């Protein structure tokens, strides 16, 4: 009898482990964040930030060397002009790494929640959005300059015209702050949460997509809405501005080209799955990936030039790296987290982390 009772803690422990499994879902909580310089690609995914050689996809270093489940990385890393790699973790810490070897230069521990979005580096300042509702401004040595608090989490980087920074928040607002002091210049309520980074034109028009199926154009000086373009699904990122048009994909798998001046639709296509990532422009070609795992290259009239189907799902942006384009993906265990294609869609190498 006693031996049976002794099993109770074991059964309870088993339940605990089961709950842990359910809690974490046994799957990553985001997709790879990718950046590149002339020699290396940097991938933030799950327990590590990896640096891989752009020539062959071989791993050069990883941070931290040993996996620690308290430290998870998904925010896209960002390179600064003075040679730092800035990456935020789900451990609430913003790290500055040496891109050569992954050694920590400094770390900022002043935030209270996850770093989900990438940072913007401009004016010798790091503008870092955090899920604790705050936009932090740090100098290049990681010292806090100012912080501004919104009413909900910040998941995406701001853009800047040099004087002000502009960003959207999950609280349905878009904010304009003085880039030097963090003082609020204006804020405008939109119809839904903003998950993506806005686009800013040289004419001072600010473009931003929402979760409530709309793309908005705002006057960046005062924040008033100039026009609204309705989309079929919700918008996760962007839009991306190229020439006269804005390019964006939605959760219903539509890809749109929209006139940036008046918000009229130039063309629309329906590839094979939801589009969450920002497109890339190379030589009059617009390239983006879908959740179904296909990378599409369209000409500027929306005609398909090539497409390439990958084994995983593509949620993030397409990243340029010299003659290559890099695509982060998620999938079953063993699926490469990074695929390098040439500009014709031919696969050059893949990167799968070795445990």
């Amino acid at each position, binding site marked *: 009898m006693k031996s049976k*009772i002794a099993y*109770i803690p074991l059964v309870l422990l088993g*339940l605990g482990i089961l709950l842990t499994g*359910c809690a974490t879902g046994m799957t990553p909580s*985001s997709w790879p964040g990718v950046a590149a310089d002339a020699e290396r690609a940097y991938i933030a995914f799950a327990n590590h930030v990896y640096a891989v050689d752009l020539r062959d996809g071989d791993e050069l270093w990883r941070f931290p060397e040993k996996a620690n489940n308290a430290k998870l990385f*998904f925010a896209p890393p960002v390179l600064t002009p003075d040679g730092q790699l800035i990456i935020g973790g*789900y451990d609430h810490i913003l790290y500055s790494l040496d891109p050569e070897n992954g050694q920590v230069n400094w770390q900022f521990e002043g935030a209270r929640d*996850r770093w989900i979005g990438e940072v913007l580096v401009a004016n010798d300042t790091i503008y870092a959005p955090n899920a604790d509702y705050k936009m932090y401004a740090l100098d290049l040595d990681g010292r806090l300059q100012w912080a501004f608090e919104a009413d909900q989490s910040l998941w995406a980087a701001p853009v800047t015209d040099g004087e002000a920074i502009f960003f959207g928040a999950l609280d349905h607002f878009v904010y304009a702050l003085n880039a030097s002091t963090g003082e609020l210049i204006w804020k405008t309520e939109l119809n839904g949460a903003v998950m993506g980074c806005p686009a800013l034109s040289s004419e001072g028009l600010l473009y931003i997509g929402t979760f409530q199926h709309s793309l908005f154009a705002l006057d960046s000086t005062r924040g008033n809405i100039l026009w609204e373009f309705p989309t079929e699904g919700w918008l996760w990122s962007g839009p991306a501005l190229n020439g006269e048009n804005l390019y964006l994909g939605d*959760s219903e798998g539509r890809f749109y080209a929209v006139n940036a001046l008046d918000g009229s639709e130039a063309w629309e296509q329906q590839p094979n799955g939801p589009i969450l990532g920002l497109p890339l422009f190379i030589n009059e070609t617009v390239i983006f990936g879908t959740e179904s795992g296909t990378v599409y290259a369209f000409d500027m009239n929306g005609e398909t030039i090539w497409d390439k189907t990958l084994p995983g799902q593509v949620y993030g942006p397409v990243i340029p790296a010299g003659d290559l384009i890099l695509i982060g993906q998620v999938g079953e265990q063993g699926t490469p987290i990074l695929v390098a294609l040439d500009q014709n869609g031919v696969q050059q190498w893949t990167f799968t982390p070795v445990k």
Partner: protein
Amino acid sequence: MWELLIVEPFTNVLLWIYKIVGGNFGLAIILFTIVIRLVTHPLQAKQIKSTHVMQEMQQSKEWQDIQKKYKDDKEKLSQEQMKLYKKLGVNPFGSCLPTVIQIPIIFGLYQSIMRALASSPIQLLALTRSLYPTFGAPELVPLNSHFLWMNLAQPERIYIGTLAIPLLAVIVALTTYVQSKLTMPSTPSTGSRDQTAMMSSMMSIYMPLLLGYFAMTYASGLAVYFIASNLVGILQYAALGKVNWQNLLPKGMRSEKSK
């Protein structure tokens, strides 16, 4: 199947309540717990009745005689107990059913809370795909995860200087302990403790520790569920007149009637 039958309905009901109560997710969890308790009340009542019958049986002369007669032969004792269970039509595991039913509810609720609060991109994607179209999900997203002093998507801590105190985990452990004590049947006066009594006693120690650990480690929304569930559970027992208040007192202070 798990998604379709448990997680998606739970998530949608939670969001529906959230919308009704004006965007308070903590209140939505508490109301959802009450709904779950109401739905499972018939089972709970059956379990309470079954426990009561068992308690009466364990205080009968026939039971006491068996305990004395076979106290040195555990196997024989077990056989004779089973015979008595059969004779009186008592299912010794009947009282376990509501506990077993709670397990998928706890798992499902935790997943639903995490999904609804969507604190990461994949969770937000999963949320958008599990919502029924009638709820107007885009305008609800993101949910307000703050309730009292807590962020329901994060483990809870109260900071006193640099000291982080998991207050909610302590409350979870306390309410679980109190609930198990109040609802535990009294032990037979002979002092002999059969397997069921032993199990109850062990559970009253391990469950508060385990649930307290969960509350300390996981999102505080789960802790809110545990506390609400414990308090509603005590009220349920009280409404059926089965709360054993004497069990909260040290053994020496309990009245004879409760023994």
